[in-house]
């Protein structure tokens, strides 16, 4: 575990130096700032719009950050061959993967926290209060990112950079549409298509579980049991993805 933390610290420092990470963060902050442009709406509508756009933006840019940084963190080890020097030392492959995951979790957490602070500041400035349910939405975005980091590492452990990027972005999009697809499948007459959709619905993480902004924006409260269940759901997917990652990495020649 100590060695995993050494890897995590190094991964975190390397990721902070990544230009793409910095650029994404700047774009995200710009988006949050631009929500001020909805001044033509009534104050109540404007607040709803700010919350909706900001939470969507935080989720999208966090995902972008998590995918790009996690993919680079692993692929660059292969491409620059630093991995061969590392694995010639007394470092277990499982510690390496765990370290990469922890490092990326830390980097993404930092990104989510920075964006959240700006978002909270914006809401406090506009309505002089901040609903607890908005914290719930931010917490689940963070939990969703853990799943995305683990999946990105799992794919990057065996696939090329381009494939990893395309596959994980595709999965991110599909993961937000599975519930919709599943509800549509009931109306389909083709049983084969129904089975296929059901299969993917059960396999692909349902990222819509983490997206509670529609409820939060209209002032709804989120039960703590829902938060814990969804967090647990995310942890299970994260653990499965890390096991898959380790399986591929264990037999990878460097």
């Amino acid at each position, binding site marked *: 575990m100590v060695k995993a933390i050494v890897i995590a610290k190094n991964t975190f*420092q390397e990721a902070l130096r990544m230009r793409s990470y910095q650029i994404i963060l700047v774009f995200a902050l710009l988006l949050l700032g631009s929500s001020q442009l909805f001044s033509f709406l009534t104050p109540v509508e404007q607040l709803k719009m700010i919350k909706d756009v900001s939470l969507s933006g935080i989720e999208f840019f966090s995902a972008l950050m998590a995918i790009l940084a996690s993919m680079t963190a692993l692929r660059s080890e292969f491409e620059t*061959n630093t991995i*061969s020097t590392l*694995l*010639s030392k*007394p*470092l277990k492959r499982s510690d390496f993967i765990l370290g990469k995951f922890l490092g990326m979790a830390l980097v993404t957490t930092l990104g989510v926290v920075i964006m959240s602070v700006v978002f909270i500041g914006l809401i406090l400035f506009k309505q002089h209060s901040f609903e607890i349910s908005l914290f719930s939405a931010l917490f689940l975005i963070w939990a969703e990112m853990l799943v995305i980091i683990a999946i990105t590492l799992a794919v990057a452990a065996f696939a090329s950079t381009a494939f990893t990027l395309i596959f994980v972005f595709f999965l991110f999009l599909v993961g937000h549409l599975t519930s919709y697809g599943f509800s549509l499948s009931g109306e389909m007459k083709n049983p084969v298509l129904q089975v296929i959709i059901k299969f993917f619905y059960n396999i692909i993480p349902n990222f819509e579980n983490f997206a509670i902004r529609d409820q939060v924006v209209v002032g709804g409260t989120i039960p703590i049991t829902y938060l814990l269940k969804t967090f647990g759901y995310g942890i299970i997917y994260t653990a499965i993805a890390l096991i898959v990652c380790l399986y591929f990495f264990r037999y990878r020649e460097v």
Partner: protein
Amino acid sequence: METNEKPAALRIEGLTKIFHLGRNKNVTALDNLSLEIKEGEIFGLLGPNGSGKTTALKLILGLLFPTSGQIEILGRDHQDVEVKNDIGYLPENPYYYRYLTGPEILTFYGRIFGIKKENLEEKKEELLKLVGLYDKQHLPLKHFSKGMLERIGLAVALLNNPKFLILDEPTTGLDPIGSRETRNLLLNLQAAGKTILLSSHYLSEIEKVSNRVGILHQGKLLALGTTSELMTQWKAGDIEDLFIKVIEWSKQS
């Protein structure tokens, strides 16, 4: 105790590595290699480009997986992670995080080795002085020349005070003074009881430090012994002549 009476630091038996490059495309990088290196010995692995030297070193380190065969290092299976506490490795082109400075890279690897903080500071200073990089402490590795990278690589390889050193082309990129310093360092390390396996193209470098050499070509170990034994056996005037005769013989047969 004579070197040949000592226990084996490295024992390889029937090591074969076949790379599968696609449908029906297989390349045998190493073919049934058997070799024993005794503790305290400097063993030179010679061979032209693509002969299988680096593949052999990577298999020993567990970076590649053998198609068949067995490898033991210091009496333990080479896949045992703990055995790597006793190994120092210098890759052909040292690959390190480019944004880190010399002391930072030593700190990073020192922690991987589990070296205590107080011991690590002392060790870092000693090694940076040894490899002549003490006055370059604030320079990130991305600004290092090839020779400087080789030097920091050597410092990393010595960080854990290893019993067994594996050095892939240790003098690449070094000027004549640097090469001589490395050569003297290897002899000093041998005097301190270390076992060294080095691979190189530089035949004269190998000849000057090695107790025994092995010549690899197309994945096969063609000759094994002391340079004087081999030169007598192959009727060669010097090590270059020996190398060429062995390779030519291999091509003809």
